[in-house]
């Protein structure tokens, strides 16, 4: 019996220990869930129970319809008020999983006579599912290492900002439920692979189906699982377990996913799904070859068989390539393709490039979102290498792929976060296991004193200290890493243990503080309501958006058409209930470019466009008074760029810059800029606010020209309290058939001399 560093009570029955362990596990998981849910409620506590941002407003609107009219009506919903005058077939162009989930919860609660408002269900859906995510991460990590690592992983994913950023209360978006589905599908896959059970394979397929119905990011699973299977085959780890797990997942999952109307026949027609199909075919060939091999003994025949398997694989591969070439299989869509060719989106699909969450990630974002997990992550991956069972290979592939994707797009940080939590939990839990274990090792020999000379440089020390133990050969040194050494392992003395444990505990505390700070400060703003702090420290709520949307709702005819940049389409539809030209479902580039063209052209050019599209009101966001930097003038260049993509001869980006290549709004702004509709609408009557003094744009930090712009074709209809939202009404055509500009000049008593002659001449010619 080895000595102990500290004594444990010995008079406890093993059953009691087991019982207490499971009780502690359950209580811990419950506490983790509570922490996960409550840390996402900052937004509700600080503001109110409200839907956030942009896309959630559409999801909320659709869910309201589903709750009010039932699933059938929702499925066949054609929305004539979006993309005016085209309309949108909503049922066939969305992932209905999110709305269906809320609808089911709503109906269940109402069946139980709990009259919960649909809005509250939508607001609280994301925090609720984050608790489920924590549980599924626990299950997943448990398969990799053990329960204690699982609990750590669950705690990490429960509060890590990288996941909270997309799942605070009110951010009612597809990602809210998708991460749970992602982790649970992966858990089922690992479990199916480990046990070779068709049951878990089918379960993986069912959750995969749920995922397909819920989020476009399902393609990540569609490619991760085949990649894992392929890696296992290449490593010579083909087994009947793999065959059963993969075949059951693929067959059922693909058939199920084709039931989602938005996906349809894509699983057999597009390149994104071809890897899954290819690996499925390869597995069938290999399984057949294995079967034949087990029955045939001749050596030559086996060689032949081997060659034919390779040949068949190649034929299949080239078959797919050929079909793609012939156009039977659609090539990668732009959104996915731009992940590989990173310059692609900017060149060919500026709409995708213009979205802020599609920008590449700088390192501070990684640290902000993952804190200490980001450097525990590689350590955890190395530990996976030292075990290297099938499921560890999965984590390794996942970590490489996801860290690349997260680097390319800020948004995909969300897919990286789970694997970081899992790997970091494996690393940290191995450390804790080692240093908590009370068993004292037996010292073998008396050490020479050379170790006393500590070099200053830690890197040098690492080289020296590592091979300086007993083993002298490299092989022994490696065998130490791989863990198959027979030498006694353990930690001497209580103080060695305490240092490491204290250090780790401190880091965990820091992690919690960091997560709380980030969540409350960075990720809990609804962006529909803004908050600022006054000079006396009191919070100040800026509610311009809702003020303006409710103005629209109450003061305009119900069939009025509102034009705005696409960012605000869903909000106008959701809060003001008015028809919009373009919205956040950016499927029609030309339509968006039309709006961009109207915004970036002069009034005379824009007016016919507005008339053709029956636009009654134009809504813009202006932050110049308050210093709100996410306003339309800052987004203006994207409007110009997108319009330029369709009308390169009429709209040209360089014309909106000064000769020195600066983007300015003051006196030195170029005429094209000053005459553009967006500029005029933003700064119309802005000067009057400042009395006689020179107006100042607080976002751009520039002095505005003394003479503000004038409008001939539009009337100012509404400007919100802090000027963030400005709404203009498009004028009716003049009753006398004059050009509106001339009519305006006439009313102001100006002589027509200036403008009239060219008009008449043109009319005669």
């Amino acid at each position: 019996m080895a000595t102990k560093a500290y004594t444990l009570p010995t008079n406890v029955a093993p059953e009691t220990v087991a019982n207490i362990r499971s009780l502690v596990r359950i209580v811990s998981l419950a506490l983790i869930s509570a922490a996960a849910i409550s840390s996402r409620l900052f937004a509700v506590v600080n503001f109110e129970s409200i839907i956030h941002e942009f896309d959630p407003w559409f999801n909320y609107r659709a869910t309201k319809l589903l709750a009010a009219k039932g699933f059938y009506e929702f499925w066949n919903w054609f929305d004539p008020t979006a993309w005016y005058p085209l309309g949108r077939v909503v049922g066939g162009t969305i992932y209905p999983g999110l709305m269906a989930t809320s609808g089911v919860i709503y109906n269940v609660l109402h069946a139980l006579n709990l009259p919960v408002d649909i809005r509250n269900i939508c607001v609280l859906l994301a925090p609720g599912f984050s608790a489920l995510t924590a549980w599924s991460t626990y299950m997943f990590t448990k398969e990799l290492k053990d329960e204690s690592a699982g609990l750590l992983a669950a705690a990490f994913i429960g509060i890590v900002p990288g996941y909270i950023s997309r799942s605070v209360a009110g951010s009612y978006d597809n990602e809210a439920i998708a991460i749970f589905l992602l982790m649970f599908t992966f858990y089922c896959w690992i479990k199916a692979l480990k046990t070779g059970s068709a049951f878990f394979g089918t379960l993986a397929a069912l959750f995969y189906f749920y995922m397909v119905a819920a989020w476009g990011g399902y393609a990540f699973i569609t490619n991760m699982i085949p990649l894992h299977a392929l890696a296992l085959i290449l490593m010579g780890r083909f087994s009947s377990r793999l065959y059963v797990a993969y075949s059951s997942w693929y067959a059922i999952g693909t058939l199920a996913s084709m039931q989602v109307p938005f996906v349809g026949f894509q699983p057999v027609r597009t390149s994104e799904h071809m890897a899954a199909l290819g690996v499925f075919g390869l597995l069938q060939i290999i399984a057949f070859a294995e079967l034949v091999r087990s029955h045939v003994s001749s050596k030559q025949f086996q060689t032949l068989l081997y060659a034919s398997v390779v040949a068949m694989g190649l034929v299949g591969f080239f078959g797919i390539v050929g079909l793609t070439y012939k156009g039977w299989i659609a090539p990668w869509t732009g959104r996915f393709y731009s992940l590989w060719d990173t310059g692609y989106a900017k060149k060919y699909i500026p709409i995708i490039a213009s979205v802020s969450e599609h920008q590449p990630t700088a390192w501070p974002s990684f640290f902000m979102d993952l804190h200490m997990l980001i450097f525990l992550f590689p350590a955890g991956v190395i530990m996976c290498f030292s075990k290297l069972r099938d499921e560890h290979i999965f984590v390794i592939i996942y970590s490489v792929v996801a860290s690349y994707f997260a680097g390319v797009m800020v948004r995909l940080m969300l897919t990286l976060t789970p694997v970081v939590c899992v790997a970091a939990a494996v690393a940290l839990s191995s450390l804790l296991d080692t240093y908590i274990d009370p068993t004292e090792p037996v010292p073998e020999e008396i050490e020479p004193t050379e170790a006393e000379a500590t070099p200053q440089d830690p890197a040098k020390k690492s080289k020296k200290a590592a091979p300086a133990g007993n083993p002298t050969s490299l092989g022994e040194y490696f065998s130490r890493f791989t863990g198959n050494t027979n030498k006694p392992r353990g930690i001497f003395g209580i103080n060695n243990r305490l240092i490491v444990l204290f250090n780790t505990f401190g880091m965990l505390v820091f992690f919690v503080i960091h997560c709380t700070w980030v969540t409350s400060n960075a990720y809990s703003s609804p962006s529909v309501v803004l908050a600022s702090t006054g000079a006396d420290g009191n919070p100040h709520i800026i509610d311009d958006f809702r003020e303006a949307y409710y103005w629209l709702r109450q003061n305009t005819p119900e069939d009025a058409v509102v034009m705005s940049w696409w960012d605000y389409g869903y909000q106008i539809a959701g809060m003001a209930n008015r028809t919009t030209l373009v919205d956040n479902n950016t499927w029609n580039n030309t339509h968006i470019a039309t709006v961009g063209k109207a915004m970036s052209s002069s009034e005379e050019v824009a007016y016919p466009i507005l008339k053709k599209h029956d636009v009654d009101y134009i809504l813009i966001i202006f932050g110049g008074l308050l210093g709100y930097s996410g306003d339309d003038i800052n987004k203006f260049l994207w409007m110009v760029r997108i319009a330029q993509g369709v009308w390169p001869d009429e709209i040209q980006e360089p014309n909106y810059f000064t000769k020195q290549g600066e983007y300015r709004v003051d006196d030195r702004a170029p005429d094209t800029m000053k005459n553009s509709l967006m500029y005029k609408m933003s700064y119309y009557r802005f000067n009057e606010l400042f009395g006689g003094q020179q107006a100042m744009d607080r976002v751009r930090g520039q002095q505005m020209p003394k003479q503000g712009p004038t409008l001939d074709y539009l009337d100012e209809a509404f400007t919100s309290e802090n000027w963030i939202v400005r709404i203009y009404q498009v004028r009716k055509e003049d009753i006398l058939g004059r050009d509106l500009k001339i009519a305006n000049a006439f009313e102001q008593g100006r002589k027509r001399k200036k403008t009239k002659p060219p008009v008449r001449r043109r009319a005669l010619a």
Partner: protein
Amino acid sequence: MLLLPLLTLLALPFCQALISKEQAQAELTKLAAANNGVINVDDHTYELLTLPNREWSSTIIFTAMDPRRKCGPCKSFQPTFDAVAKAWTKVSPEHRNQHFFAYANFEDAMAVFSKVGVQSAPLVYIYPAIEGPHKPASGRTTPLSYDFSGGFDAEPFAQYISRHTPAPIPYSPPVDWMKYATIGATILLATTALRVIAPLLKSRWIWAIGTTLTILTMTGGYMFVRIREMPYSGGDGQWIAGGYQNQFGQETQVVAMIYGLLSAAFLMLTMVAPYQTSPRRQQWQVWLWSGVIFIMFSVLVSLFRVKNRGYPFKLLI
């Protein structure tokens, strides 16, 4: 040979319109043919190219190739322009003589630069035809400038110019033999060396090192630097870029190194220290690696504070 330009030069001050269209076009055709399809712009050729009653269009690049001007973009765009102009010489003569490519260097054509009012280089102007069958449908007579925001690549440039030429420019990118040769050589080398490197490929630690390095570079923000084409470091010895969503190339290296060191420290504590047989040596290691973790983490947090000014926490520094 010299007489004709001389005569035209003499005639210039009197009346521009005296230059007949046909004469000018013939001369431009000759000049273009003599120089790979590119006409060198001086005062005289500029007059010819932009004749007020011209039936042809032209693409003129205003650039500053003199090394003293230190115009990097000019140098990187010039090969593109030359390649597209050369491709234009391959179309049939009746089309070819309706559009001209011309090259205006600042040193040789200062008067033209000031006349056009060029403020920055490179600048590409497309002068549309004013009369004749190739007059643009929009009736536009003022020159159009090419937008460089799409980059300096030849293909989009040729595509854009093709919209203003009588026939599309038959530009095709040159075959990158070097690339194919490199790929071929690599494959050949890999297959021949397969026997040698097979044990390496089968070693899990080779893969572990590769995986870890990939992860570290990616989480260090390497893709940001690549996609945004950020410089390695700032101009004045500054290696930390200001702002939260911004970074230089050197930051990737430093941050990846810090992450790597912290990771290694954890691995040492977990996978090396417990295998020590001597208590004394083990204690040194535990102290050392715990110290490394604490110090490096403090450094990392203070680095983060530089990037994110509002961050309220710090450890040692």
